C-alpha cells in the first residue's frame, strides 16, 4: 500500500498531516515531517501537498552513489542511514521536492507510506491505495 493524495482541491492547509508525520516518529514540532503543504502562490488558489508519490522506477534511488536508497515493495524507497553519506543527490533528483532533509544528521527524510497521516487529515485529502491503481485524481 502507498500513500496517495486523492483530492488536493479539498486541502485547507491545516498542516495536520505534517504534525502527524512527526508524531509517528515520536517527535513533536515540524522538523522531522516527511510531508509538506504549501499554497499555490497564495492561499486563495489552494494548496499542493508535497510527499513521495511512490514512482515506478524512483529517480532518487537511481542517483544514490552508495545504494542507500532501495525501492520498497508497494512503492516508495527505503533509506539505509548507515550507507547514506548525505550528498543530497536524491533531493535534487526528486522534481516534486518530496525529499525532506534532516538538518541535524544531514540525511534525507522520505515518506515510508505508513498511512499514519491519513487518519489525521480531517478532509479526506489523503488516502491509501494499492500500487497498481496509480490513477490520479490530482491534476
Amino acid at each position, binding site marked *: 500500500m502507498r500513500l496517495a493524495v486523492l483530492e488536493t482541491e*479539498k486541502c*485547507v*492547509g*491545516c*498542516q*495536520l498531516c505534517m*504534525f502527524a508525520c*512527526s*508524531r509517528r516518529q*515520536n*517527535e*513533536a*514540532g*515540524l*522538523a*522531522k*515531517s516527511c510531508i*509538506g*503543504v*504549501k*499554497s499555490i*502562490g*497564495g*492561499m*486563495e488558489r*489552494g494548496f499542493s501537498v*508535497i510527499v513521495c508519490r511512490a514512482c515506478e522506477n524512483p529517480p532518487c534511488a537511481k542517483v544514490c552513489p552508495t545504494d542507500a536508497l532501495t525501492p520498497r515493495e508497494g512503492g516508495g524507497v527505503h533509506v539505509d542511514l548507515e550507507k547514506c553519506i548525505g550528498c543530497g543527490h536524491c533531493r535534487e533528483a526528486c522534481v516534486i521536492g518530496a525529499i525532506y532533509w534532516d538538518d541535524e544528521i544531514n540525511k534525507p527524510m522520505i515518506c515510508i507510506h505508513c498511512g499514519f497521516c491519513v487518519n*489525521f487529515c*480531517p*478532509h479526506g485529502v489523503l488516502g491509501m491505495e494499492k500500487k497498481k491503481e496509480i490513477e490520479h485524481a490530482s491534476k
Partner: protein
Amino acid sequence: MQVNDPLSNVLYIDLSKRTFEVKRRDDIFERYLGGTGAAIKLLHEECPEDCDPHGPENPIIFTVGPLTALFPLASKTVAMFKSPHTGNLGESHCGGRSAVAIRMAGYGAIVIKGTSDIPIYISIDNKQVHFRDATTLWGMGSFSSGRVIRENETGAGLRTIMRIGKAGEKLISYASVISETYRHFGRLGLGAVFGSKKLKAVVVSGKSSLPVVDMKQYRKAYNEIYNSAVKSPVMKKYHDLGTPENVLPLNEFGGLPTRNLKEAQFEKAEVISGESLAEHYLGRRLACSNCPVGCIHIAALREPYEDEAYFYKTTMISYDYEPIYALGTMLGMNSAKDYLRLMDRVEAWGIDAMSAGVVLAWATEAQEKGIISEKETLDVKLGWGDVQSYITALRNIIEQPNEFYTALARGIEHTISIYGGEDFALAFGGNEMPGYHTGPGAHIGTLIGTRHSHLDNAGYSFDQKLLAKEEKSPEDLVDILVEEEIWRQILSSLVICFFARGIYSPELVSRLLNITGFDVSEADLDRIGREIYVEKYRFKMREGFKLDDMRIPKRIFETPSPIKQLDEAYIRKALEHVKEILAQEGVFQN
C-alpha cells in the same frame, strides 16, 4: 517548563538601529505561560508611561504559547501594543500560520521597537533577522505586497507573512495587519503602529522539534483533542457554515444591529446569511495551522469588466460574521455581492472591518440628520445599501482629503468630539461596537472588557443563554463576566482559539501543561488568570482609563433589545461593581 523549550526565547528587534538579540525569559513564561500573559508583562516592561502610540518607543509585542505547534487549535498569535485608536491597551489576536511559524522559528515572543527611516520589512527565521528595503512595496495593497514577499522569501509552507495595506501606512487609527491574506490582527490599530514604524511586513518561518515530558502521554492527549474537535457539534457548526452561521439566529433573536442600530433586525438578513453565501459564493475553505475545524470561508466573486465583453475577474474574498454585521447589516447592504465588494476593499486597504463599518454607519446617519452635509463628505451622498458611496467614502477616509475624513480616520469617539452626534455613535471604551444588540451582557461586556471586544467575556452569549431565562442583578452579571474574562486570560495565554473553549476545560489544560513540562494545577490556572486580568487593568489605569468616564451611547436604549433589562442605571451599577472588584486587587482609577 522544559529547559530546552525554545518558548522562553524572546527576540528583541530594534528597527532604528537594525539590530536584534535573543534573551531567555524563563521568568516570564514560567509565571504567565505565554500569549496574553507574557505579552502584558512585556508591555509593562517595554512601553513607557504616556508614550506616543506612533513613537519609536511604542513596542509591538507578538507572543505564542506552550501548546502551540504541539496540540490542535493553539493557533493564535497575541499582539500587544499601545493602541493609537484608544490611546490605551492595544491587544489583538490573529490565526493563520502566524503562531506555528513563530514557535517553529524558535521563539515564544517577538518585541519590535524603534522606527525605520525608510520603509522596510523584516524576515525572521531560525537563525537570523533580515532587514529588507520595502520602498517599492510602500503604497501597495495587502494582496500585492503579500504576493511580492512570497516570491522573494524562502520558507514556503512554513511561514507567516504579516503585512499592512494603505490604511496602516496612512496611520488610520483602526488599520489592521493581515496575515495569510485572510486573517487579521483587526482591532485597535496594530496596522497604524506598523505604519508609524515604516514597517510594511514581518515574515516569520522555521521548523524545529519541541520537547515534551512524556511522548506516550503526548500522543494520547493529541488524539483525544483531535477526536473531540472533529466530533463536537460546536466545531461542526463552524466547520460547515463558519461564523456566519450566526446571522439568522441573531436576526431571529432580534439582536442583529441594523442601519446603525436604528433597528435590531434586518429584513434582508437571508441574502447575507451563512447559508446563502455558502450556496451562491463559497469557493474555498481554509484552516489555521494545526486546526482540524477549518472555519475560514472564502467566497468566489465573478464579475464582468464593464468596458470589455467576455472579460471577467474572479476575486476570492473571505467572509465572517463580524464583517457581515459591520459592512452588511449596519450599512443596510441588501445584496451579498455588494457586501463582498466592500469587504474586498477593506481587505486590500487593510482596515478593521468592524470599526470601518460602524464609522460609515454613523456618518450615514449623521448625514441623514443634517449634522454633516455634502460639504464635509465632498459630495458623497451616503445611503444605506449604496455600496459605491461607501467605497468612495472609505477611500477618502484613507486618503484624508479634508478635515472631516481626517476625523473619521481616527474613529467615532474622536469624530463626535468635533461634530457631535454622540447619541448614535456606537463605540464602547473608544472601540466601535461588535455585532450584538442582545442585551445588557453584550454592552456591559464590551464596556468592561480589557480590550473592549465582544470576545473578552462573551456577554452576548450570556444574554442568549442566561439572561433570556432569568434576571440578574448588575453585580451578579459583572461577576459572571469577570469570571469568564479571567478564564479567557488562560485560554489566550495558551493562544487557544476561543471556538475550542468547550474542549479545553481547566482539567485538560492543566494536564496538557504537565505534559509540556509546566507544573500547574487547576487552582494555579485560576490564580494566574486573575493575575493577568489585573495586570491588564493596571496598565489601563496607568494610561488614564476611567470606568467613571465611560460614554454610553443612548441608541442602545432607544432600540429595544431582546433582553429588556437594559437601562443606564443598570449599566452604571455594573461599572461601580467592576471598580469594587479591582479595588480589592489594589487597582484604582486615577
